[in-house]
């Protein structure tokens, strides 16, 4: 037991050592601004959380190519092994001590928080020229209050993944309306199968996206936040999942628990809402036995969303405060984020404006020849606008807590959105931000 202490110290020491090893922008040899000498060699550091798994085009190899073609802008990429909130914490400390990387991956839902924490460099003057390279929705997610802080990398529109073969066996098809969804789910449940999953651990991201498909929670009026998480969309999401839960027609395994994968492998769970970036993850989860059976479809009009979908995840790369070569950093970033094929191999649905984004061969064979990238692009274009507040991670945590209680029936589904409302207001107050009452 004594080692609990030691272990925590060890990990703190490891993090400290890691941050010392990261050369900041300031160490690039020049303390003047970038424009002074066009032949001067600048050093750009970039920290990311991309998977870099086997079979993918690694970030290092993409960066290597850039470095070969641009001898004057040398980029050094570092992978952060850990989750988003750990990375933000680390970057926050690094920015304070002046040795943060120049570029860092930041989720769209985290960008306002990172801005409020004073970690971003205004790059509006360089962003404009790259506007046409990216889809307008994600491009605008990299701005806060009218100023731009980086460029978008990937998006996470919610889509529907389903086991087509199992659907055919049951004689059901992808539901179009809310009542069709409920009927199909109950029919499947009678045969011991689920066509929907309620993932308590992903509630903060996914339910927000589903509710957000039909309208925003957070708007700004006269420089103050108007918070309303009890929208028509939220109530509809609560109603549908409550109905499904009450009639035992929904799987309640947490998304990142091994039992979720087991349920897919046993063909118990045969359909689930998921973010586009889950396509390769689900391939791993389902395994070889489901190969060729699964397909991707757009969400139906299940939650009063009128054919729209919402965001779940997705990231951009932001320029961090203290970067002395913003111009060169943005030049690299624009190039990097438009390396479509390489980024797709990392499992991303790219934010770059590219109609010819190709579905990787491996995915195509898995999803029975379907060109799923086209489905994702379609969902992307159908995505409702959604603004996150600074400190949204605390809202997501509160929603997860409420959702885990709702999934066991000790609380109602609606209480998830009530928790979101009160936590949103508490969090904004804690940050010292204005709220319109």
């Amino acid at each position, binding site marked *: *037991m*004594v*080692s*609990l*202490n030691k*272990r*925590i*110290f060890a990990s*703190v*020491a490891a993090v400290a050592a890691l941050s010392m090893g990261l050369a900041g922008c300031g160490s690039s040899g020049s303390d003047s601004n970038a424009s002074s000498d066009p032949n001067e060699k600048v050093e750009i550091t970039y920290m990311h959380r991309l998977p870099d798994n086997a079979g993918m085009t690694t970030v290092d190899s993409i960066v290597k190519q850039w470095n070969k073609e641009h001898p004057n802008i040398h980029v050094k990429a570092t992978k952060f092994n850990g989750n988003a*909130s*750990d990375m*933000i*914490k680390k970057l926050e400390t690094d920015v304070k001590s002046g040795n943060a990387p120049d570029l860092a991956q930041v989720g769209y839902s985290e960008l*306002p*928080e990172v*801005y*409020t*924490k*004073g970690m*971003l460099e205004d790059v509006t003057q360089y962003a404009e020229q790259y506007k046409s390279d990216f889809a307008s929705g994600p491009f605008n997610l990299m701005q*806060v*209050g009218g100023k731009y802080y980086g460029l978008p990398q990937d998006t996470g529109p919610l889509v529907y993944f389903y086991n087509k073969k199992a659907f055919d066996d049951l004689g059901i098809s992808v539901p179009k309306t809310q009542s069709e969804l409920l009927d199909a789910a109950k029919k499947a449940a009678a045969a011991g199968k689920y066509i929907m999953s309620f993932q*308590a*651990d992903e*509630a903060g991201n996914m339910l927000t996206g589903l509710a957000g498909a039909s309208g925003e929670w957070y708007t*700004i009026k006269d*420089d*103050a*936040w108007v918070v309303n998480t009890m929208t028509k969309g939220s109530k509809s999401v609560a109603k549908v999942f409550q109905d499904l839960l009450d009639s035992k027609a929904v799987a309640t395994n*947490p998304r*990142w*628990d*091994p*039992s979720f994968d*087991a*349920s897919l492998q*046993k063909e118990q769970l045969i359909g689930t809402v998921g973010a586009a970036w889950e396509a390769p993850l689900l391939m791993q989860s389902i395994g070889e036995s489901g190969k060729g059976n699964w397909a991707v479809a757009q969400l139906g009009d299940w939650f009063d969303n009128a054919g729209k979908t919402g965001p779940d995840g997705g990231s951009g790369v932001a320029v961090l405060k203290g970067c002395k070569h913003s111009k060169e950093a943005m030049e690299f970033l624009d190039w990097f984020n438009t390396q479509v094929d390489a980024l797709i191999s990392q499992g991303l649905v790219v934010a770059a404006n590219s109609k010819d984004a190709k579905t990787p061969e491996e995915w195509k064979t898995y999803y029975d020849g379907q060109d799923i990238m086209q489905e994702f692009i379609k969902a992307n274009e159908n995505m409702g606008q959604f603004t996150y507040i*600074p*400190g949204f*991670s*605390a809202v*997501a*945590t509160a929603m*997860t*807590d409420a*959702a*885990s*209680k709702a*999934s*066991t029936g000790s609380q109602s589904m609606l209480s998830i959105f009530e928790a979101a409302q009160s*936590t949103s207001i*508490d*969090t904004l107050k*804690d*940050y*010292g*931000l*204005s709220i319109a009452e």
Partner: protein
Amino acid sequence: MSATTQTAVKRRGSSTKRSKAFRREERTGWAFMAPFCILFLVVFVIPIIWAIYQSFFQQVATGGGAYGGGSLENKFVGFANFQYVVTSSAFWQGIGRVLIYTVIQVPLMIIVALALAMLLDSLIVKHVSGFRLLYFLPYAIPGVVASIIWVFLYNDQISPIVKFLEMFGVHPDFFASNAVIASMANITTWTFTGYNMLIFLAALQAIPHELYEAARIDGANGWQIAWRIKLPNVRGAALLAMLLSIVGTIQLFNEPQVMQTADPSISDSFTPMMMALNTSRGSLTPKGDGPASAIAIVMALIAGLLAAAYAIVERKVNES
């Protein structure tokens, strides 16, 4: 410890005559102490002072507007963070959980460890070192890894344990809200029993064997030797093991943090340690290092009080 050395040095220094040899010896002594002192200062004393300093601040946006102008400022808030901690129901629920955990897990583990140690000591078999290694082995597995292994063993769809029990018609749910603490306690017990057994075994083997011989000559049997000689002689070791275990379980972190992936009903403030981490990360409100430091300090005070209380009670019992 270093404080007493220092005063001793000062006293000697004040006496006017000091031989060269003595001063050199003194320097050598400090040189040997230096690695410990520097590390102790850097990784222990300074972080604690820093945490205490931070606990009086909160970070707030002062720029106004919806996004707060793009920087946070450290605002001195006096004891507001401590007031938040001691009035937070989430914090006391967390303390309540670890206390229940401590009360169940620590005595169980210590008794099992002691029993195993006495068994090994009394057998005096050739294979003591083999058994010792075997019992100690789980401790060699990092706590996080052990937790991950057990998460799989608890999983109702893939666990061999669940499958085995289901053959007898038992359907266990290791993640049920009334079982989850016991499931965690099981992981800790599995990991640390061997470690504590080692403490006891070392204490047992340090007992002079003449005592046993004398007892046998006086006609004591095996039980009496165990009860009257061995047990009283490992009291010091038991106190040490109990104190370490109490302080350790108050800081319960690895098990719930890992099990959270399998069970979202384990909240971000399940134990005080998790609450401190998630407050500092910003996934709990109020956020930031100020409130997080306050949680850590209050938790340390409670752990210190409990350990002190245990030590005092133990001494009283021993005296009587």
